[in-house]
């Protein structure tokens, strides 16, 4: 036994095959290529099958990690996918975008001495295998209950609610503002990180199970929540995300060439501007690009700019490397692709020419001062350290806020002081009877898996309501 354990610890963590940096930074194809079945089985065999698995504690939806990994080790890839689906409706997505290093893999026991099990890669492998081979069975749909649920927003949280409730026998209709479903998974996260065909296939599965989808429906404008109740819906789930960009309110921010990450990424991903003029929507192609911020959104914008032909791409961030909130893999990929990080630096204003086009940005150097409320050392400006960075494109990626369109039209849903919906953390119930909410509209921009976790809890609560009462 001891011997066996030691052997497992000696097997090195599998390396994901990837497109080479100098090749991939010119195309929009996915960067990591996926494990082969042999690699996946070898990697799966590293798992110690802990009796009290720490990794599961780190997963917000408590995926049975040793359970699915054991099936991969045995070569039962479909079985692994089915195991994943018990807790996670979108494993092909989560395997790619979860911040594993601070969640499941961050707590894996093997990580204490060496490298943790590559749980994310394995999750992705099993889900991709089941999808590509079309071998996994659809879940069984319970007998129809005759109850109708409206799900507003088709991001990960809305999709989770729809999937859970259709299986429980309720009629489900998703109302989505855009012409395509998937939320941030289609308009925000780029193709090279999450192929849109994966999201489309997840949505197709929901449709096969009987979920109705009404795209082009902005709830609050096209129809209100009260009107949905009048139309016969028994319950409503609000999963509209955090779709309002934050700007920095600096002089010159309206020069042509300064974009929110939302606009830049929506044009590129949802509207497919990277294939202009085959697709009609254009996107600015900068030569010298600056991205403000250091989260996943910023990395996506920076890597997109590179692929759209930039000569230089700089990520400008006011704190230091240790505080950069993006997933470790994104930072690593970005650096490999030639993106420069300019740390401890903050913009103060933008410069433009007589045609209103951006020509540069003034910055100030920062140093780390006393820790702030979040425990991170607060950056303070170094007096007189102003200097100019020449640039023709700036993407502002400093966060998002709740979009008030729906909540303004529904005054009887209580909001907190930031404009997020107040929802019971255990059930997702809002202050309006028959209405639940979850995901980024409740928490502010968080993660895909947290949005899905909130969706699952709300779905359970909605099911109780529809079968037992409020």
């Amino acid at each position, binding site marked *: 036994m001891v011997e066996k354990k030691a052997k497992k610890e000696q097997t090195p963590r599998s390396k994901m095959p990837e497109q080479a940096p100098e090749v991939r930074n010119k195309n929009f194809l996915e960067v990591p290529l996926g494990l082969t079945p042999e690699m996946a089985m070898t990697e799966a065999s590293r798992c110690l099958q802990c009796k009290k698995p720490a990794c599961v504690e780190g997963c917000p939806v408590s995926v049975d990690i040793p359970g699915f990994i054991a099936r991969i080790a045995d070569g039962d890839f479909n079985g692994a996918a089915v195991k994943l689906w018990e807790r996670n409706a979108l494993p092909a997505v989560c395997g790619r975008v979860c911040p594993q290093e601070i969640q499941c893999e961050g707590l894996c026991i093997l990580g204490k001495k060496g490298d943790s099990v590559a749980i994310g890669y394995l999750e992705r492998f099993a889900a991709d295998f089941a999808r590509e081979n079309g071998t996994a069975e659809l879940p069984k749909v319970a007998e129809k209950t005759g109850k109708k649920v409206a799900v507003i927003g088709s991001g990960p949280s809305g999709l989770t609610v729809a999937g859970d409730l259709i299986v429980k026998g309720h009629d489900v209709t998703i109302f989505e503002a855009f012409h395509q479903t998937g939320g941030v998974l289609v308009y925000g996260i780029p193709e090279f990180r999450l192929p849109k065909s994966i999201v489309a296939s997840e949505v197709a599965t929901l449709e096969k199970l009987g979920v109705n989808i009404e795209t082009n429906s902005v709830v609050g*404008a096209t129809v209100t929540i009260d009107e949905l109740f009048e139309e016969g819906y028994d319950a409503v789930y609000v999963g509209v995300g955090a779709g309002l960009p934050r700007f920095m309110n600096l002089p010159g921010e309206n020069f042509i060439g300064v974009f929110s990450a939302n606009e830049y990424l*929506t044009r590129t991903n949802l509207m497919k501007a990277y294939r202009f*003029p085959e697709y009609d929507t254009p996107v600015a192609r900068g030569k010298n690009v600056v991205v403000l911020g250091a989260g996943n959104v910023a990395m996506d914008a920076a890597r997109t700019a590179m692929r759209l032909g930039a000569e230089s791409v700089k990520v400008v961030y006011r704190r230091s490397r240790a505080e950069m909130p993006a997933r470790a893999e994104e930072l690593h990929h970005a650096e490999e692709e030639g993106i420069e990080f300019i740390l401890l630096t903050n913009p103060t204003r933008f410069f433009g020419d007589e045609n*209103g086009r951006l020509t540069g940005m003034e910055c100030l150097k920062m140093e780390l001062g006393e820790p702030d409320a979040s425990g991170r050392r607060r950056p303070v400006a170094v007096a007189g350290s102003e200097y100019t960075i020449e640039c023709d494109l700036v993407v502002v990626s400093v966060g998002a806020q709740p*979009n008030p369109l729906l909540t303004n039209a529904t005054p009887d849903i209580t909001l907190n002081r930031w404009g997020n919906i107040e929802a019971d953390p255990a059930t997702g119930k809002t202050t309006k009877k028959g209405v639940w909410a979850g995901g980024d509209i409740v928490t502010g921009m968080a993660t895909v898996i947290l949005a899905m976790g909130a969706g699952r809890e709300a779905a359970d609560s909605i099911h109780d309501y529809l079968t037992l009462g409020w």
Partner: protein
Amino acid sequence: MFEIVNREEMAQGTIVLNEIDAPRIARKAKPGQFVILQANEKGERIPLTMADVDPEKGTITIIYMIVGKSTKVFGSMQVGENYYAVIGPLGKATHIEKRGKVVCVGGGTGIAVLHPITRALKEAGNEVTTILGSRNKDLLILEDKMTSASHHLHICTDDGSRGHHGFVTDVLKDILAKEKIDLVVAIGPVPMMKFVSMITKEKGVETLVSLNPIMVDGTGMCGGCRVSVGGTTKFACVDGPEFDGHAVDYDELSKRLTAYQADEKISLEECKQNI
């Protein structure tokens, strides 16, 4: 869904009207609101104001000038064909109330946008004077409808082929000199709205304009439609599209409208080769 049920050409085919089946939108739309349309899956999202709605029939009407690729594709679609996407009603509705004497100034396809607002202002008990402008008599649209929506109507053409020979601002100046006007609504090309606002600002007459910046989603999520009004940034799609004409930074708006000029040319050329 979104089938074209009626199509008309105006102004010698340079302006096209589509009546589109969109029952949910038709039930809710109010004067001043707009929709975003996409002709096909690869198309751009184009904002157009609703020129009319018929809640019973479940249709909305748009009137647009053919200026680039997307409007050219729209214009080529026939009765029975479908738009891929129509989203709305978006933006704030015009605040309609009885103010007294109102002057409505319209230019180009702005006249189409102005029509439902003018009609509502008249129905609300205002005395409505309308001034319409176009380059020449053949490009003038909706004259009949605007005549019945107003108490008094003036027409101006740049070449003098109809009505007053000159700009709408000449006629507006005359009216403001003679009468006390309570509200001016101006909708048309950016320079027109700018000059109308300059004149009315001098006289201290409240003025509403409808802005047309480049948009993507139309729901406040991208910030592409930023305009400066009274020194602060507004998102035209949710805070507008109507704003206090005296506070708008028209020069910034004009410049921002040129953001994609080079790409628009490429698009149009490619489209000409394919049609």
